[in-house]
């Protein structure tokens, strides 16, 4: 693992957290019940907090005078390396929950590994805090999958359609590129083939309980980790970055 790859791994962790946190925060004030406004905002807050920690670490390691905000607000979509799933629009509540369910199952396993690895103590420290949050995110999403799947006919059909649609974005989690491979080789990142088994077990067990069907693996979307995104990310960043880019000399 080169220093550049090591840095890229930390940035990717931050990007995943920020992009999903930004998406989720749009639910604040618009949830199906007040309790969900609170729960989704809480999840968004956790993720934004994780992003800040990873970005601050990345900025310190690269030592180019940047900080968390420069990394968040002054990089283009091509420089973001989040998984494609996370930038997908919120859609309806079922779409949001399925996105959260797929990601949380992955992020929880990944983070548990990061908290135990001995290669980078600072990453382990951030992960140790994040893993508790991700456990809650997973439980929250999994409980909703069961309620929606085993609720009414309408909710069952809706959430199954969300699953079928978003499934093609889950392959990217386990599709290791050079950076992933180097990270795993060095012991910083988990082996993605092993992760896949754990993820499948989690997801399949919950879907079965929810009376939902796990789709067959077909063609999987890819490109986020290489900076080749769906059409959605550029819009999301345009909105998110508008103030710092309009007033680059200002501090807030």
């Amino acid at each position: 693992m080169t220093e550049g790859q090591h840095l890229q791994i930390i940035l990717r962790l931050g990007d995943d957290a920020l992009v999903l946190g930004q998406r989720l925060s749009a639910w604040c004030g618009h949830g199906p019940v007040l309790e969900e406004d609170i729960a989704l905002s809480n999840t968004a807050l956790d993720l934004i907090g994780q992003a800040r920690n990873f970005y601050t670490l990345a900025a310190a390691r690269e030592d180019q005078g940047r900080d968390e905000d420069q990394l968040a607000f002054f990089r283009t979509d091509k420089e973001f390396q989040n998984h494609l799933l996370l930038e997908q629009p919120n859609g309806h509540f079922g779409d949001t929950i399925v996105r959260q369910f797929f990601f949380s199952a992955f992020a929880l396993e990944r983070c548990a590994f990061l908290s135990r690895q001995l290669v980078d103590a600072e990453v382990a420290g951030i992960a140790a805090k994040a893993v508790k949050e991700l456990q809650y995110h997973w439980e929250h999403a999994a409980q909703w999958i069961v309620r929606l799947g085993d609720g009414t006919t309408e909710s069952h059909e809706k959430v199954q359609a969300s699953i079928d649609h978003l499934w093609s974005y889950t392959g990217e989690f386990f599709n290791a590129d050079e950076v992933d491979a180097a990270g795993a080789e060095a012991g910083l990142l988990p082996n993605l083939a092993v992760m896949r088994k754990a993820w499948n077990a989690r997801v399949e067990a919950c879907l079965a309980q929810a009376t939902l069907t796990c789709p067959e693996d077909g063609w999987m979307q890819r490109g986020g980790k290489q900076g080749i995104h769906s059409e959605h990310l550029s819009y999301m960043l345009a909105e998110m970055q508008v103030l710092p880019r309009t007033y680059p000399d200002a501090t807030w």
Partner: protein
Amino acid sequence: MSPVEMNLEARFDAYVAEEKKIEPKDWMPDAYRKTLIRQISQHAHSEIVGMLPEGNWISRAPSLKRKAILLAKVQDEAGHGLYLYSAAETLGVTREQMLDDLHTGKAKYSSIFNYPTLTWADMGAVGWLVDGAAIMNQVPLCKCSYGPYARAMVRVCKEESFHQRQGFQVMLNLAQGTPEQKAMAQDALNRWWWPSLMMFGPNDSDSPHSAQSMKWNIKRFSNDELRQRFVDMTVPQAELLGLTIPDSDLRWNEERGHYDFGEIQWEEFYNVIKGNGPCNKERLAARVKAHEDGAWVREAANAYAQKQQAKKTNATTHAA
């Protein structure tokens, strides 16, 4: 009113006059119950409608720290809504009924949230002025005669005063920032000052519910008293920020020991209440949309809970 009721009412009045708390199971006059349901549900609605103008800037907050603070703040408002709906439910009304009244326009919410948040500086001005005015109104409610409301307000006020300080901090950063930022802060003060003064309601001479609420220890200070207190507190803060309050009649009155200030445009106030404010339609439409879009989710949760309950009952029956 029967002699028994008259006796109960006299005892109730004496109890309240002694500053004792009324609890949900205590006897209370119907009008007291109705007044509280109206006031607490309006307050709850204001919290959740109030999430919208600030929520408008979460996606565009200019730093990650500001984003997290704003999101946490708006989330707090949702929490306040929850405490308050729960407090109102102790009076025998359901959240569903209250939301229905909001969505059909039968129940009101604070008119201040019908103004738009046009720039980031509005996140400062709303925290500083709107939350500041809300605190003036709300702190006395911590001692109101109805126990569940008073206790909810203790928590609400703690968080609101934190919000107010952080709104002021946003203003301070802008006021000490670039010329564009300072102009943004002044513009926000210009737009939010008068609507904030209107938050205290009509002048005392025109306030319909005040006298009875004072007698019941629901209201402790008059609208004009609280408004004056707010002006007196806020003028020095604006001076500290180096911003100008948009009122040419504003000056210190040595004799009264208070600031004099200009006449409020009550025509605007009543028009915003009537639904003619810049954002009345959008705000209500956003609430209705969230509720309608979420109907299938709530139905699913209920259906699932019923299935679980049925399974449990079945299991118990079989075991027996």
